[in-house]
């Protein structure tokens, strides 16, 4: 079987984002999804620090440190974009106005719980940012991550062991090996990479998976 590389996965997530969607892309890997949204379409990228209509990274000579994304990287503003304060920005997030958010995760449960802010290590200095607001507020929460950790443990689990970010909020998991629908009925497999079978995926995950209807 052939794992999807990060770029292929980003392109795959982008395919499920319809034109006109208001989208928040999390820091790191999810940010790359923007590169695969069709240039000719109108997609509305939201940044928690008060931007709607975020555009791509600027040329070096156009960098403006008052125009950064949630990851503190320089960005641009599309024609038609706008600025607002943090109260309004989180009204968009908490109030259900963001159609899709894409986040990374340490773990996701088959019922859509997500853990992505804290490893639980006793000496870790915690930082949470806007992850909990997005988890609870976006209409759809997509998670993007490798299915297995570096040590081979499955990050899609019956029950998260890391500290939670949000409960029963993730609707889809896009991983390098398969794409899953999550919810009250557990995880259903939507797609698998070539060469992977449901049986093999059950073995890798230790979960009693079925295909989505």
């Amino acid at each position, binding site marked *: 079987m052939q794992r999807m590389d990060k770029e292929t996965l980003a392109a795959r997530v982008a395919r499920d984002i319809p*034109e*006109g969607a*208001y989208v928040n892309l999390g820091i790191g890997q999810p940010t790359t999804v923007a590169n695969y949204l069709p240039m000719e*379409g*109108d997609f*509305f990228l*939201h940044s928690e620090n008060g931007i*709607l*209509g975020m555009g791509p990274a600027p040329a070096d000579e156009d960098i403006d440190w008052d125009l950064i994304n949630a990851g503190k990287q320089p960005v641009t*503003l599309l*024609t*038609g*974009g*706008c*600025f*607002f304060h943090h*109260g*309004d920005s*989180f*009204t*968009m997030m*908490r*109030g*259900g*106005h*963001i159609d899709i958010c894409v986040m990374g995760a340490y773990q996701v449960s088959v019922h859509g719980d997500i853990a992505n802010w804290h490893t639980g290590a006793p000496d870790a200095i915690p930082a949470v940012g806007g992850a909990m607001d997005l988890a*609870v*507020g976006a209409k759809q929460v997509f998670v993007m991550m490798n299915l297995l950790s570096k040590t081979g443990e499955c990050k899609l689990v019956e029950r998260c062991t890391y500290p939670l970010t949000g409960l029963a909020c993730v609707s889809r998991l896009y991983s390098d090996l398969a794409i899953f629908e999550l919810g009250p009925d557990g995880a259903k497999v939507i797609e698998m990479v070539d060469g992977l079978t449901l049986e093999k995926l059950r073995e890798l995950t230790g979960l009693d998976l079925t295909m989505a209807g």
Partner: protein
Amino acid sequence: MIDKTVPTLEEAVSGLYDGAAIMVSGFGEAGVPAELIDAVVDHGATDLTIISNNAGTGDVGIAALIKANRVRKVIASYPRMAGSVHFEARYRAGDLELELVPQGNLAARIQAAGSGLGAIFTPTGFGTMLAEGKETREIDGRNYVLEYPIHADFALVKALKADRWGNLVFRKAARNFGPIMAMAAKHTIVQVSEIVPLGELDPEVIVTPGIFVERVVPVPGKSAAAA
């Protein structure tokens, strides 16, 4: 290409249905989306809940809807005004339910709906008739009343200008409830004096970002300035 503008008032309100809760912007006459309300009258939807500061005067705006007996309930802070004859007649006849809400609680409950809060403890109205039967709590030596968000299916809003993404700017005190109602309704429909090309509205100056707006319909020359 996303274009939220629609050419006619009829199309703008085509999604309405019986029993809908509708927020209507405006304070006095300023910011009242009169033509959109006329379109609601023409549409025929009935059994409506209207959430607005006032309940209309004369035969226009919300008063026209009430006159046509389309309104089951009004949520307002100041429904009785000089000329609110249709409201008064229906109310006295027992045809119209009224939920009277202090104006700031009306604003705060609309904001709570828009921002996804489950409830708020507000000091306004504590110890008055309007808090009777409601949960109260003393917090840090002050008394508060628990109030719940006011959601709506539709918001009808009047603004000055919009672009095709639904970004809005307003005019003077006609802004009033428009921006917060746009945030609190499932479907926000806006009448504007002018549709401008994308990019003409300064990104620093947009009052309501398009994320809160579903449809925009031009009603030229209907701002107070042009009246």
